[in-house]
């Protein structure tokens, strides 16, 4: 274990599991990630480019991903907005790619404080078209490391876009964590990669299907893959849910602060449990639907105006009342605030 800052931990974890190229653009609160890679990638003689914009960075990633290498970029909310075009092309090309989003307050230029306001823009289609990226949301530096490792594996397993979505708190804080061991770089490239057509027919990577029938058939293949992902890749952690009358749901930093609030509520004798989604897509819909049958109420806690709230409501339906407590604009809720929200809705929950 060593003391690691979230941004640096993500960058170093990516290097150790074989990041072969990085393209990025500075933006707070993500910048230490780029800075760490600007030194380490060059030391290791691996490509690092500080692009002229996030638009260029994601398209450089697109190019390198076409060559079949482990590649990633990182940014923060306004930069993710700029990358949406490239993300859609990457998704439409069936190539593996990892993106790290260290979310900050918005809309607009907003501020550089921690936020979860990107939930909609990263869990829906991340750009135009009709697809869902895999989205992993760490709540600690250790999880940020683990999900970065997992992101590359999932991206390559499904040839799919994977986003590690951490709020600025996770990117900026330091805590003890353990990095993976250094792995050697892969030497072979996948058979679909653009490497020059020596010894085979030419490979083509595009996202264009002019005929409606072909475009629809492509979309059906993507949706079939996404259905597999929905079944196989839901991740979440639960605390004290066995006998819970009130279920608190929160991800990332909001979920972590909610954990403290739930512990305090338990100490006060309230039967409160916590579910923290680790994958925002696929969302742990079935488990939440199951728990909604057991509990008398649900409280969603987010650092936004209620975005995951919509996925919770879709999962819960009319099985239980769903309340919401959110802070916005870069404000992080304190455990006391969430405890008050728990106490406010708890009497309703056991009624």
């Amino acid at each position, binding site marked *: 274990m060593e003391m690691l800052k979230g941004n640096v931990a993500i960058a170093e974890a990516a290097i150790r599991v074989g990041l*072969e*190229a990085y*393209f990025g653009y500075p933006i707070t609160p993500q910048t230490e990630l780029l800075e760490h890679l600007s030194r380490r990638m060059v030391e290791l003689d691996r*490509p690092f*480019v500080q*692009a*002229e*914009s996030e*638009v*260029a*960075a994601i*398209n*450089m*990633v*697109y*190019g*390198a*991903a*076409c*060559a079949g*290498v482990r*590649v990633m970029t990182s940014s923060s909310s306004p930069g993710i907005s700029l990358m949406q*075009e*490239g993300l859609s*092309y990457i998704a439409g*090309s069936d190539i593996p790619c990892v993106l790290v989003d260290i979310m900050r307050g918005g809309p607009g230029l907003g501020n550089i404080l921690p936020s979860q306001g990107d939930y909609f823009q990263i869990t829906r289609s991340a750009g135009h078209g009709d697809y869902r990226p895999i989205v992993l949301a760490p709540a600690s530096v250790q999880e940020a490391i683990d999900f970065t490792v997992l992101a590359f594996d999932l991206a390559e397993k499904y040839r799919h876009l994977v986003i590690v979505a951490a709020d600025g708190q996770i990117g900026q804080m330091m805590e003890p964590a353990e990095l993976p061991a250094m792995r050697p770089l892969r030497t072979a490239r996948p058979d679909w990669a*653009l*490497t*020059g*057509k*020596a*010894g085979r027919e*030419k*490979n*083509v*990577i*595009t*996202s*264009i299907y002019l005929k409606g029938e072909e475009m629809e058939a492509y979309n059906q293949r993507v949706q079939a893959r996404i259905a597999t992902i929905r079944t196989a890749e839901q991740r979440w952690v639960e605390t004290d849910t066995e006998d819970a009358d009130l279920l608190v749901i929160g991800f990332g930093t909001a979920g972590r602060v909610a954990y403290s609030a739930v512990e305090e509520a338990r100490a006060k004798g309230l039967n409160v449990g916590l579910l923290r989604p680790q994958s925002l897509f696929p969302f742990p819909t079935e488990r939440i639907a199951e728990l909604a049958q057991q509990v008398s109420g649900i409280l969603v806690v987010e650092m936004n105006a209620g975005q995951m709230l919509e996925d919770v409501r879709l999962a819960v339906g009319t099985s239980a009342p769903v309340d919401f407590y959110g802070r916005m604009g870069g404000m992080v809720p304190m455990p006391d605030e969430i405890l008050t929200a728990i106490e406010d809705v708890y009497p309703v929950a056991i009624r």
Partner: protein
Amino acid sequence: MMRDAPISDRVVVYERPQALADIHTHYCPGCTHGISHRLVAEAIDELGLNDRAIIVASVGCSVFSYNYFDIDACEAAHGRAPAMATGLKRVSPDRLVFTYQGDGDLASIGTAEIIHAAARGEPVTAVFVNNAIYGMTGGQMAPTSLPGQKTTSSPFGRSTDIAGFPIRMSEVLAELDGSAYIVRRSLHNVKEIRRAKKAIKTAFKVQMAGLGFSMVELLSTCPTNWGMSASDALTWVADTMVPYYPLGDYRVIDAVKDL
């Protein structure tokens, strides 16, 4: 009546380059894309790079160029081909990576990407087809449309009061230290076509020698959207485009002369 010579006595004097796929293209009759495709393919063949070449197609009339070359290929978002080529080249430094872009793609929506690829001295090549109009979308004004030129989005002729002035991209990119080889050629007659071929081949050699960024701008026709016959379109290039976009070598670093 003359009989054909026996097969054994025949000599091949003209054939399809290996790097060109044996399929029909969607290009309009009289369009010079066919010529520029052939020149690129001949250059690849002659340099023996067929198994190591990767084309980054762009958005516009050249959107399907990934289909027309028998080499590895991908298709970029509008204007982003130089960024995509950068990604490919950085992880495949011994491959020939080139973009094939029109003027809307390279000189309008993709100006940031092309300028910074050149500024970084990215060892990739841009084949820049400048026909002064948006062809694929049906003939709208391009950043390279000439003052007074009538298009479907400048129906009274390009007004410099409204739309400003055309951009001469070769001159712009020649200012950047990362550029190794920036030239403008034309496809309006046989002599210029031969010069264009030589330039494309040189640009590819510049890339493979790792000398920096290279671009060959090709003045080209769009008879369909210009509303001209193929022949008149070639004349229009010579009489109207060449005076505004002078042919020549805009940046050739010393190391290129040693190739």
